[in-house]
């Protein structure tokens, strides 16, 4: 099912085995297993209620699964909190972006991982200067142009906010980045810049799992497409060897062919 046979040469970064999550009687995620390879973009598609968000929440440590195994580079990990996911090298870009509007760019990028310095040798104080410098470095490394770092992020455009949220993830040594509808509500130009950024991340060996409703974006972006229906993983297909019609059929009928 996982399509691993054709990708023997690449290394597995993440392995998900028999993941289950139920809400009351509803099996929102039903024994889902798949692998993620280094530096690939894996799109996760499916109708509303197919279980994409629940699956992603389990991978991000936001909602622990009932059973199943998650491995990162061969090591099993327990993801009970967002912190656990952080430590495992999994970064998640939430649909609401998870930014604090009133804080500026470096404060948002470093929130929860603040750099501190000591004044008089013992009083901890935020190191605003170093956080700003490291933010600039990070933005330059990924070719992001943000004009006003010290503005509250509420005053940035949708695409700029998106890049701030992504910068937050790139700050740490992240292996897998999960993005929930990263292109929603972005203009064409801004959407293209986010696509560039995702490609840039792939070039640096970061694996990206993207949830999207927009099949056009999915076909532009993804190396492989995973389709879910009713909590089950219908299958994973390589973008290069499938068609939109085939994917639509998988989404609608829940069958591989």
């Amino acid at each position, binding site marked *: 099912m996982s399509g691993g046979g054709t990708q023997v040469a690449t290394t597995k970064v993440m392995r998900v085995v028999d993941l289950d999550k139920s809400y009351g009687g509803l099996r929102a995620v039903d024994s889902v297993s798949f692998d993620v390879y280094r530096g690939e973009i894996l799109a996760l598609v499916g109708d509303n209620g197919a279980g994409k968000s629940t699956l992603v929440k389990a991978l991000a440590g936001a909602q622990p699964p009932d059973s199943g195994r998650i491995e990162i580079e061969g090591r099993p990990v327990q993801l009970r909190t967002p912190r656990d996911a952080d430590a495992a090298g999994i970064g998640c870009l939430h649909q609401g972006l998870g930014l*604090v509007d009133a804080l500026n760019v470096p404060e948002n990028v470093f929130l929860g991982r603040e750099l501190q310095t000591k004044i008089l040798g013992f009083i901890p104080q935020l190191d605003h200067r170093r956080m700003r410098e490291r933010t*600039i470095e990070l933005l330059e490394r990924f070719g*992001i142009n*943000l*004009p006003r770092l010290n503005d509250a992020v509420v005053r940035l*455009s949708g695409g700029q906010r998106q890049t701030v949220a992504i910068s937050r993830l790139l700050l740490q040594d992240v292996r897998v980045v999960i993005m929930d509808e990263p292109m929603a509500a972005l203009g064409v*130009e801004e959407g293209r810049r986010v696509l560039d950024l995702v490609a840039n991340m792939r070039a640096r060996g970061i694996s990206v799992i993207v949830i999207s409703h927009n099949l056009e974006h999915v076909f532009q972006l993804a190396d492989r497409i995973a389709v879910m229906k009713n909590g089950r993983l219908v299958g994973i297909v390589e973008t290069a060897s499938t068609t939109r019609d085939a994917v639509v059929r998988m989404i609608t009928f829940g069958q591989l062919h």
Partner: protein
Amino acid sequence: MPSQTAIAAANNIGHADRRWIFEGLGLTAVIVVLAVIFTLINPRFATVANFTNILTQASFFIIIAVGMTFVITSAGIDLSVGSLLALVTVIGFGFIKGGMHPALAVALMFALGGFIGGLTGMLIAFVKIPPFIATLGMMVGLRGLALVHSAGNMLFGLPPSLTWLGQGSIAGMPVPVIIALLFALFGAWLFTHTKFGLHVRAIGGNREAARLAGVPVNFVEVMVYVLMGLVTTLGGLIMIARIDSTQATIATGMEIHVIAAVIIGGTSLFGGRGTIYGTVLGALLLSMMTNALVIAGVDFFWQLVVMGAIVLIAVAINNLRERRIPTLALLWRRQPTGGGVNNSNPGG
């Protein structure tokens, strides 16, 4: 493109959103204009003695309003500050009258203030009682405890070492004013330059995002109210040192004055944004107005009416600024910030 980023960032020195500095200047202008008007109405307003008096009056409010700035920025509110002040001062005063060493009594006052603040914080963070209701309950309950403890009696006669805190002066500057200004500086540092301050702004701005980022939101929320309790105790200590007495009804209605100072100072009632600088100016403005009303011979009951109106106007302005009034918000459209590829305006 990278160099543009660098240039743009280099032009933004400091970390604060500059808009708030301009608002601070606006408030300063309001204070100056009002001071001129009050002086024209009654020249007695513009005497050194009267200004000293205003500053001293403002000092208690500045101290407590600095704490309230943290509370409101965390998207909370604390209505119990006046009652807490009454309870810790009647208990502390009682200890001293009972022969306890003043230093120990003061230490116990702070411990009690911090402890009660912590209880309030836990009711809010863990029992999930909305801050307004939790602190309303505390406001009534703590006032009751203060009345029970003091049996309605007035206490007076502090040792000189304590009254100096309220009545002394250093180089002509009253000690309460010095303490208030030092404390405001400390508060401003805590607000913008520490992890705690950043976390307070984060949980007030977007609690869920802060949680996902790994901020210990409940702990920070409890600590905000612990801080409020400690700060209220400090304000209370200086207040009773100033008047050398206390009673269970002291500081009745103080919460509205303190909250008004914070809101006038530009802190958002919806959390996330605020400045200590604005709060200090807000407290000064209020003390100045109260003083001017007294000098102008305005009846105390009418002073209350004016006070209430000021609070409502301040909140209305706050809502306007936050664009929370739908019909007016439409007229106040922001111009879009540059999102194009060629962002050739680094000077901003």
